[in-house]
């Protein structure tokens, strides 16, 4: 076998399994989803009636579908705060701090926990009558608050829980990136008399640009795809105030037996993510390199 042929066969054999997996579990379902979005399939019957663009028309004719996306804004805001906090912790825990490994583990722990378990746990914290938070507030003389029952509050409460859970993950990513920054640049800056804030502004932040971009991307898609927290804690209530887009999709598919419409909604979500992420890249990070 010639060297070239060897190289080719090696590449192909290494690529084969990941490609097959990718095709079966990502591209095939995605293609199927797009196909289903043009049918009026109810989820179980053998006939899948082709309805053309009907499902898409229905979605765009109904304002309610997109108004729930406003609820996702709370998660987006929470996600920004979460990133800032994560970054601060990362910088802090990158320095020489006593017991920093303990802090790192503690802060990362919530991310490993099961989402539904986290939801249940906070259900007990935010319960109006028996919740620990209201118990604490009452002790210091504050009237109990209906955390999950007040429409203006509920999304922020849920966003807080989500930020609590995912902050550790962002932090670890930042921490890893910080540790990979070359030490000599920092040393040179210090010799030239750069202060801590200047180092952060001109060396650390630019060095982490790619990673900030990645974390923001994860935050935005995460915010658009929230499902488990409101599903477990509020069922979208009170009166739809905390319903999210994905929850609507699931409801449409399984509760109202309209897989076709639900597929179309998922396709639209996919497009929204693509658009939002492209806009974000252009706005936040300039023209790239």
């Amino acid at each position, binding site marked *: 076998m010639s060297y070239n042929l060897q190289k080719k066969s090696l590449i192909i054999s290494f690529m084969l399994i990941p490609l097959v997996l990718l095709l079966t579990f990502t591209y095939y379902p995605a293609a199927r989803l797009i196909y289903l979005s043009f049918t009026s399939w109810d*989820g*179980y*019957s*053998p006939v899948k009636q082709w309805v053309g663009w009907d499902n898409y028309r*229905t979605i765009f004719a109904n304002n309610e579908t997109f108004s729930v996306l406003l609820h996702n804004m709370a998660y987006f805001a929470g996600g920004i705060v979460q990133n800032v906090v994560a970054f601060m912790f990362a910088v802090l825990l990158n320095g020489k701090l006593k017991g920093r490994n303990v802090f790192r583990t503690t802060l990362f722990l919530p991310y490993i926990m099961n989402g539904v378990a986290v939801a249940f746990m906070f*259900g007990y914290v*935010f*319960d*109006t*009558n*028996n*919740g620990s938070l209201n118990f604490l507030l009452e002790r210091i003389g504050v009237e109990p608050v*209906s*955390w*999950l*029952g*007040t429409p203006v509050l509920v999304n922020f409460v849920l966003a807080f829980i989500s930020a609590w859970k995912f902050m550790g993950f962002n932090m670890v990513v930042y921490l890893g990136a910080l540790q990979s920054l070359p030490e000599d640049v920092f040393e040179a800056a210090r010799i030239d008399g750069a202060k801590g804030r200047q180092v952060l502004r001109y060396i650390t932040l630019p060095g982490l640009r790619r990673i900030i971009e990645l974390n923001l991307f994860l935050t935005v898609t995460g915010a658009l795809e929230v499902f488990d927290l409101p599903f477990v804690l*509020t*069922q979208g*209530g*009170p*009166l739809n105030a905390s319903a999210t887009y994905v929850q609507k999709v699931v*409801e*449409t598919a*399984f*509760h*109202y*037996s*309209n897989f076709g419409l639900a597929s179309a909604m998922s396709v639209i979500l996919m497009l929204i993510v693509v658009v939002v992420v492209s806009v974000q890249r252009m706005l936040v990070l300039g023209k790239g390199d």
Partner: protein
Amino acid sequence: MIVLVAATISACGGNNKGNNGNSTPSSQAASSEAPVVTETASATASEAGAGTDISGKIVFATNRTDLIDTKFKEYAEAFRAKYPNAEVEFEALKDYESAIKLRMATAEMPDVILIPNMPNAQLPDYFAELDDLGLNDVIRFKDYKSLNGKVYGLVSGGSTTGIVYNKKAFEKAGITAVPKTLDEFYAASEKLKTAGIVPMATNYKDKWPLYGWQHVAIAMSGNPEFWNDRLKQEKAFEPEGAWAKSLSILKTIIDKGYAEKDINSTNWEQSKKDVASGRMAMYLLPNWVIPQVIENGAASEDVGFFPFPYDNSGTLTTLLTPDYFYAVSKNSKNLATAKAFVKWLIEESGHDDFSGFIPSIKTKQSTVKQLSDFLATPGLNFVEIAPDNSDAMEIQNKGQIDFNDMAQEIAVSDIAGVFDKYNKKWDEAKKALGK
């Protein structure tokens, strides 16, 4: 997935062996139990040849994941004792409705299943007729899962909705007799509230427990076709109709503080403990909740059940609703065995009674004390709910109308406005579907 495939394969294998090797007429085995029924069954035997070849392995899909290692093992043994050549395997599915629909779509349906929520028009696509089991004259809800006069599903048990209450809580509040009119009901609620007990666990936040109010509406109307008649009405949801009246009772309960302190922070699991302990007094739910309250710590004799007095007339009407229906896959490799198993489940297993349901067979008595007392309430009228009309269901799904959403919205806004909104949704969906 692997287990699933394995089960299907072994089911096929079992079938072949059974058919070739051993053809003991099972009517012999069955004769001591129910000779008359068996005869009628074989007399009307259709393609299944019921009663002659009860052998092979079948799979039964159930929603009761909690019974798979206990009660269902007993059933499997008992069935085997009756039909030595047959074997039944129980498969419990989590999130039953979605899971079974996926299985139906992939044509890997177990032999016996509980029919999920689907239009009756599609029943013959999936299921075998069950008219040859000889149960048509004695079973409740015979026509509920039938099409063109043919029965495709037999009910696994029935329920009725009423007030499940903690007798100790009533005693503590000084309530001596169960309320017979709506005014008495409100008066009792007031007494409970004064005694520091939450009168009614609505479970408003969890939403689904509000479905009892639909049952009250249908009982009030006395019309089994209450929801289907929306098709004929000018307004699908009449602002003066029974549904509006039923919801106005819910609204009164919430407005007067007879419900949980914060209805947006209710907790279903906790509510069972609270009703059991007497911190909360009542549920408006079907009888299935009784054993659950008892499981959560109430003594059985402290839990009562009475028909909901929705007005002041003094006559009481209650709605009977079916639980899941057993059906046999028309592609089952062991059709006769599957049918025999359904018949056995209904007639002999006692599963309906065990689960706290009203027995499927009309003449059978419930051994649940609360239920038999409830059913024996003097002058109580019954309405047996009719199956959903598929047109009505289609419009409702298309318009994404959920009755429990309506019930939730009523609590914070006025009935006329909410009904207007849903009438509009209905009309639009109806128009879109061209019905």
